[in-house]
């Protein structure tokens, strides 16, 4: 029975992907990142759980794409597969046409928490990737200080993480992710632990920083407004198993300001997305 219902859900996935197909703009160049039928199954036998079911997506270079879904829909798993931290059960992720099998220098990862090393100063934390890749610290010192300035954290380089607020810590972790100039920035609900006001400020700052570096960005969130505000495109993931429900292109003008959240187009997109997230069977 369970198997039959899974099959039914599977076919629903295919339909919804096909339905959302026309909304994707024709790809001019080859995509920066491509998910091809990515499926992830955890456990075996009775504990078998399909976390992701044939997720296919392509993301063009320099785009900011959010993956939106309820908690437990497998969006973090999807990001971890993209980062090469865990393998997909079926399907593959391609970066510049080559399959991603392990993490690489070309990707910056920002976690749900700032994950700073508490015994290192802010500057030493930002330079950690430099050390791990056996590069010279002094070659990156200026770059690190530039990043701190960009983050509005000038003068904090010798502080310890414990001295910073949650928002500041997360900014340091973004600086750490950017220090080696990755071509892809992967962010896993980086502002989920922050209060609403700080979070909106961080959204504005993230866009400012991103507009300077223009890396391809994949941003995981369960916050609809955050996804709309930040992204060129929002991919709505359905739950259990995680599958692409609908893809929205966000054509709001950039640079975006905090007040854009109150525009009619913004709120309409949020509403549509909310419906897409909560929609169950009626899609068929």
């Amino acid at each position, binding site marked *: 029975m369970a198997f039959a219902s899974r099959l039914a859900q599977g076919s629903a996935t295919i339909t919804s992907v096909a339905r959302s197909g026309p909304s994707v703009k024709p790809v001019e160049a080859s995509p920066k990142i491509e998910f091809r039928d990515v499926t992830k199954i955890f456990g075996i036998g009775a504990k078998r759980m399909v976390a992701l079911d044939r997720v296919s997506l392509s993301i063009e270079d320099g785009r900011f794409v959010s993956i939106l879904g309820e908690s437990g829909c497998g969006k973090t798993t999807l990001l971890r597969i993209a980062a090469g931290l865990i393998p997909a059960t079926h399907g593959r992720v391609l970066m510049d046409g080559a399959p991603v099998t392990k993490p690489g*220098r070309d990707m910056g990862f920002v976690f749900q*928490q700032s*994950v700073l090393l508490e015994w290192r100063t802010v500057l030493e934390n930002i330079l950690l990737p430099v050390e*791990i890749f056996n590069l010279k610290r002094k070659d990156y010192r200026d770059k690190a200080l530039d990043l701190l300035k960009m983050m509005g954290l000038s003068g904090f380089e010798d502080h310890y993480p414990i001295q910073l607020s949650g928002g500041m810590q997360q900014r340091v972790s973004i600086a750490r992710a950017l220090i080696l100039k990755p071509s892809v920035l992967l962010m896993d609900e980086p502002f989920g632990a922050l209060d609403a006001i700080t979070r909106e400020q961080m959204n504005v700052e993230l866009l400012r920083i991103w507009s300077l570096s223009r890396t391809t960005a994949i941003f995981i969130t369960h916050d609809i407004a955050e996804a709309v505000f930040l992204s060129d495109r929002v991919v709505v993931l359905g739950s259990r198993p995680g599958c692409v429900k609908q893809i929205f292109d966000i054509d709001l003008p950039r640079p975006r300001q905090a007040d854009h959240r109150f525009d009619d187009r913004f709120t309409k997109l949020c509403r549509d997305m909310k419906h897409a997230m909560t929609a169950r069977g009626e899609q068929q």
Partner: protein
Amino acid sequence: MTALDIAPNEAEDTLDQTAWYGTKAGQALLTLVVFAAVLAAWWLYVRLMALSPLVLPTPYQVWESLVDNTASGLLPMHLWVTLSEIVLGFILGSAIGIALGTITSQSPLMRAILNPYILASQAMPKLALAPIMVIWLGFGIAPKVVITALICFFPLLENTIIGLTSVNPYQVELFSALTASRRQTFFKLRIPNALPVIFAGLRVAITLAVVGAVVGEYVGANRGLGALIIATQGNFDTPLMFAVFVYLTIVGIVLYKIMELMESLFFSWRHIKRGD
């Protein structure tokens, strides 16, 4: 959300800084007053009960014995012996504990195999081994060093394993996302993570080391503060015995403070005020 939010709770338990007893000098004065009161009560008790100095000497008799026997060189000589046992045993035991803990932490299989033995040897009171150490190693300083080392070994073994293995899983994931090698993860993540825990083990060990050396001397020795206590018991020189207690207390405090000082030099970041 931030560290600042914790501040009000912490403030509840602090002193009124404006009152005279809120100042450092005021507190030091109060501590001295309490000390004087305890000494006075002690003295009064001996006098009122007309106790013999054999049972309980007065504070002044203890002071006299302390000064005389320090000047004569008796107490410093025994102190030197005990102190060498403590320091040698502490260094030996801690070093072996840290080394074995580091090796054990590298493999879950090894931990699983060794765990019952570690548990058993933890439960076994190490001081009970003192007599056999005397049989094996004689009456010199060696058996006391070994007993002290045994006592210091286990807190360090355990804390090293805990410190090196209980690493924040997010930090481990950060290192794998950065493609860090095992070696890099060990030196840049596991060791810094373990250091505070290892230092906590050292603080426990240094206090235990004093106990180990003194009790080791009880069992069979002619030198050392422990041996001196046994000798004063035989001679009914209770004031000198109390003088030894004073020495031991000071040794314990000084060694502990040295460990604390080393720790604070190592982890300046831990002493920074939250929220700045």
